[in-house]
């Protein structure tokens, strides 16, 4: 079933886009339902899609030999999944797996790129939203690196 621009508008990532832009994006979007445990992509795979998560929870993960799979970050309703496609060589940095049943809009990134090339205004709007997502995740990641919950004796920056 095809996606309507009005449905995209209710997703936090796409909200505020002009109706014309919403329609053009909707035309290249599809609705997907993913069962719990389904892997959306693997680390190293070709990054050719992006998703707007509507319901459920997706974990970005990393396999390390000899250790349990590590969770990098979890994403949920309102979040955008997929940033690696923006930069060459467009390969996934991490893997992604649905932790519970997930519903999302999926968009092929070749089609998205094509839309942006032909409509720079749409391209600018999408770029701003993707940049905003990246900034928010970068800031959160930086806070996590600071390890603020660590015990003071283990914390970086103490004078003792």
């Amino acid at each position, binding site marked *: 079933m095809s996606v309507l621009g009005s449905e995209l508008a209710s997703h936090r990532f796409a909200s505020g886009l002009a109706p014309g832009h919403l329609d053009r994006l909707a035309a290249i979007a599809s609705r997907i339902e993913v069962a719990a445990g389904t892997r959306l992509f693997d680390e190293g795979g070709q990054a050719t899609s992006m998703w707007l998560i509507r319901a459920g929870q997706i974990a970005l993960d990393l396999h390390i030999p000899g250790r349990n799979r590590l969770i990098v970050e979890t994403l949920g309703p*309102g979040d955008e999944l997929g940033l690696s496609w923006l930069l060459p060589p467009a390969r996934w940095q991490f893997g992604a797996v649905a932790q519970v049943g997930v519903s999302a809009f999926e968009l092929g990134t070749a089609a998205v790129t094509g839309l942006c090339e032909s409509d720079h205004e749409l391209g600018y709007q999408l770029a701003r939203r993707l940049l905003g997502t990246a900034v928010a995740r970068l800031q959160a990641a930086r806070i996590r690196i600071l390890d603020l*919950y660590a015990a*003071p004796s283990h914390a970086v920056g103490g004078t003792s």
Partner: protein
Amino acid sequence: MIDCRYPVRYRVSSRLEETHDTVTLTLEPAEDPIAPCRPGQFMMLYSFGVGEIPISVSGAPGQPALTHTIRSVGAVSAALCAAQPGHVIGVRGPFGTSWDHADAAGRDLLLVAGGIGLAPLRPALLAALAQPGRYRRIIVLAGARSPAELVFASEYGQWRERGASVDITVDKADASWPGHVGVVTQLIGRAQLDPHLTTALMCGPEVMMRITGRELTAAGLPAARVWISLERNMQCGIAECGHCQLGPLLLCRDGPVVNFEVAEPLLAVREL
């Protein structure tokens, strides 16, 4: 009348290891109990021969027994964490302001906790859960370093059953953790707050409170509806030694619970 200058003997009645470095002690008075404490207040806990530190109460208010959740980070906290049932420690207090200032009746009560910051918030949560209907929604957002370092983890289910929405996130986890991985601010958007009807209580590392406070006000909450719990070097607890100053505030008397509108400009000044 109990003079807050002298420690009162309290006996450890139970000891629960919350995490590898955090213990919850329940204390019963070994002599006349000290004054009842309010959520958000703290006691000075004394371990004989080692010293005394400020620890917020972490249990339901209004009981003669005291509950304190202590993280072992120095000599005194380590000694307190090692105290076994039957052991007597000294207690002075209660000191400071309480979460009661927040006056959130009829509104959504949002509690945002970072790490062991969930401990000083727990009395406010338990008091709220004990008064069904007083608040519109009760929402708990808590962040911790890892799943193994979550405090009161065995209670989250009960809190949900009693009507609170509880969302937990950790900085790092492996695949055995089915929950959120990320910072607590990332949970705020998902909580779908009504900024005009929400009162927020926050406790955690100061940086976390600065950042989360900004997120909340950016989401439309007036700063005056956000309350945080601050700490500084505390020694006397009775506003006479001068150590706990933060600008015009003496945190043992004007805190630890401080309104974010007052606190934010003070926290923004380096080395204040």
